[in-house]
């Protein structure tokens, strides 16, 4: 034990030789996964011994696990030995040199979303200095955050600079043995974000991965850990609305949230990874484990997500309501078009007294896509006075798409009140007709109706995100009606 502590100290005091931006061209590991891969990743990241052990434990466990087959999604079997688990960021030579080399269709999408010119290049992966403009922005934000005492850095940095915090909370919400993809992530996670909000601090701004420059290439196995101490508040934004190109097909991220007494965490996601082309070729597999623990009294965790991308989505942001009077919320819009498949929903586990949860899920399917809501509300015997309200609405746009709901309700306390309702319907022809008749094009009419359908969720998004999300919805559903 003492040697481990020595090692820790050694690591924490040494200077981080890669700097804050991982822009150096590192070697890429050949495809394959075994214990040596895990050791290699850990060594490259100069991780302490305990973290290596932690990764190895997860890996050994993963080897014994079976890939889940219960989700309502279909894809060819993944060969986990054919993936490279340590890929360096693309060097500038491989990337498009200017916007002229980028797929015009992608550029047209940026145009519609109203993305500023300088950001388009960054999003399309163009190797221009524009990307690094945000470095200065990031630095300014960093100073402001540091003044407030907020820690916001990549998780690899945090392992070096705040090992005691990381060690205390990492894997405490999603244990390395949790599920197939979470175990895989624990074994080989590349990088991610770490946020720590100290006691009584209200984070002065909305945190976004966008501001953390070295988050640009965290790769396929992202790990995020957010800890909110007593009485603190943070709003965290993940992803961005523009379609992101990525060379990795499999994404297995893990997000852990911890809220102590009276703390509040608001986590908003806009996910728009490449969904594959119109015929269903390519596209990202997005297999994510997200979970928040309301450990303290009166704590609150709120998940808001807008899912429009990825060929396959498998994602259930959950809340474990341990503290008395704690609150869990889940607001989701999931859109699938063409050949996309989504199996997404939430879990609300009520353990403490007077815990409350709200679930609002809006699924929209178009083309030949399949959209499933899968959720669990579990009221444990001690959860006196627990309350849940769930609403899952689906909208179908096209006669070849599917909408499915699989809500599980398990109640073991009689004082609990649990309500679930779901509806499935078609986009209203009479509504489209009415809008047409007022001179609005069918495409705009559809976008307007769909936005109305999703309003309850968009309302929960931070303002800028909400505006972008509305535009995104219109773009995602393009060509699905008429």
């Amino acid at each position, binding site marked *: 034990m003492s040697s481990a502590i020595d090692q820790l100290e050694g690591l924490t005091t040494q200077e981080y030789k890669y700097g804050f931006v991982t822009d150096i061209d590192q070697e890429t590991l050949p495809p394959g996964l075994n214990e040596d891969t895990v050791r290699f990743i850990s060594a490259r990241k100069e991780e302490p011994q305990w973290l290596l052990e932690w990764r190895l434990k997860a890996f050994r466990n993963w080897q014994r696990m079976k890939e889940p087959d219960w989700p309502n999604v279909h894809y060819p079997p993944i060969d986990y030995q054919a993936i490279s688990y340590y890929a360096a960021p693309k060097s500038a030579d491989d990337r498009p040199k200017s916007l002229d080399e980028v797929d015009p269709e992608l550029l047209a999408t940026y145009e519609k979303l109203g993305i500023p010119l300088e950001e388009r290049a960054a999003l399309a992966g163009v190797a221009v200095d524009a990307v690094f403009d945000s470095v200065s922005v990031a630095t300014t934000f960093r100073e402001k955050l540091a003044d407030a005492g907020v820690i916001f850095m990549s998780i690899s940095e945090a392992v070096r600079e705040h090992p005691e915090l990381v060690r205390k909370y990492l894997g405490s919400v999603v244990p390395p043995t949790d599920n197939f993809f979470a175990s895989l992530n624990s074994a080989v996670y590349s990088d991610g974000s770490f946020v720590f909000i100290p006691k009584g601090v209200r984070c002065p701004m909305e945190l976004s991965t966008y501001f953390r420059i070295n988050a640009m290439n965290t790769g396929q196995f992202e790990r995020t850990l957010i800890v909110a101490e007593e009485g603190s508040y943070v709003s965290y934004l993940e992803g961005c609305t523009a379609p992101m190109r990525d060379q990795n097909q499999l994404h297995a991220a893990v997000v852990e949230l911890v809220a102590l007494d009276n703390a509040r965490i608001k986590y908003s996601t806009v996910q728009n990874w490449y969904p594959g082309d119109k015929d269903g070729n390519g596209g990202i597999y997005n297999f994510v484990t997200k979970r928040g623990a309301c450990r303290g009294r009166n704590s609150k965790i709120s998940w808001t997500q807008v899912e429009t991308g990825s060929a396959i989505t498998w994602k259930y942001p959950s809340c474990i309501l341990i503290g008395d009077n704690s609150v869990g919320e889940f607001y989701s819009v999931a859109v699938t078009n063409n050949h996309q498949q989504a199996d997404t929903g939430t879990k609300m586990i009520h353990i403490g007294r007077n815990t409350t949860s709200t679930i609002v899920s809006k699924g929209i399917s178009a083309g030949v896509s399949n959209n499933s809501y899968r959720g669990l509300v579990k009221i444990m015997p001690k959860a006196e006075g627990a309350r849940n309200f769930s609403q899952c609405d689906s909208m179908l746009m096209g006669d070849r798409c599917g909408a499915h709901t699989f809500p*599980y309700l398990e109640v073991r306390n*009689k*004082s609990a009140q649990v309500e*679930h309702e*779901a509806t499935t319907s078609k986009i209203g022809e009479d509504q489209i007709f009415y809008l047409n008749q007022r001179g609005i094009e069918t495409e705009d009419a559809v976008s307007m109706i769909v936005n109305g359908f999703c309003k309850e969720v968009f309302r929960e998004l931070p303002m800028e995100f909400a505006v972008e999300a509305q535009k995104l919805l219109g773009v995602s559903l393009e060509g699905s009606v008429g």
Partner: protein
Amino acid sequence: MPAGIASASLYLERFSDLLDRTAGEPSWLRQRRERAMERFLSMGVPTARNEEYKYTDLSALAGGERLLGLQQPGLAAIPPAYVGDDAKAVWFGEGLAVAGFAQAGVRVMSLREALLAEPSLLEEHLGTIAVPDQHALCALNTAFFPEAAVVMVEPGTLAKEPVHLMFGDGMGGRHPRVLIVAGRSSSVRIVETYSGAGSFWRNAVTEIRATANARVEHCRAQFESTNAYHTGVLQGLQDRDSYIGSFSFSFGAKVARNDIGTRLDGTGCECSLDGLYAVRDSQHVDHHTAIDHAAAHCNSHQLYKGVLDGNTRGVFNGKIFVRRDAQKTDAVQSNKNLLLSDKAEVNTKPQLEIDANDVRCTHGATIGQLDATAAFYLRSRGISAADARNMLTYAFAADALDRVRVKPVRHHFKSLLLARFAREDG
């Protein structure tokens, strides 16, 4: 050997006995039995590892002794016949009695009679509506039923009196099998009751074929001893413009599991699957429904209500499938549960799987307790706490019972319900 069956010897032994006893059966039926036996042995008795049985573990039954073992019949209270006063019950033997079928256009036959009278109809329907291939318990019944009640309703017949099938003790009573074929534009009401004392396992299968424009109102009630296991399958197949109504009462048994489904196979069909489960002490009741909308312009309704007291567990899983091109479907499902005790548990999973776009499907599920303000109001009017509780419980469940179309059944169950949760202390 599948996980569900530790030793298949008892099943195989009894199966060969049965084949000896039923040597005169036509070859198609024999082949279906053999095929079902094969399927059962490969699937085994379902355990909690099977997603469909996640909350209802039947591994205690795996050996088959409760189903196939020789047991002394107990003396169970036989429910009243829910038919006209002058109708007499006729014993079919092997644990089955039938009342109320002496009416024009309705024939109730034993398996042997039906095989002689309507061989082609039987070959068409028996074992083809409730398909044993993917359902272990359905396969088990198909392999083993020694006797069957076959109800044939002639085209155009509007049967006035309900037909009441009573399953009591005896071997036939442990593998009840019913086939109902309603001819074109006919209408019939059928009541099945299951009773029995002692510790046994009953595994029932009912198949209903509603041909064009036919109307079948079915009601199934089980009040077996609280040491018994009950598993049941009810499967309907509907032609265009037909209607099947099903009501399932589950009051008895230690563990009861019902799989109720219908396939709407022609345009303009309608079905309603309703039920009430009211359990206490340490009973476990599970309803799985599946409505398969295979054709356009069909409507379905479901209302399941549950009252759970003591240490009980209530499970509900309602599936609605809307197949591609089953446009203009209107499906409504609702499951409401009342918890009377802190130790009771509810697991509900309403499930929609929709592959057509021009549809309206809704489902709702609620779980809650008695309204404290309503109880307070009643008390303020001078009604005792115990009475207030009974009244409110009754009121919660009674509206489901209003969907039962056979009046004497409705009245009988309303009175049972009122007495069921009566407590003096409040």
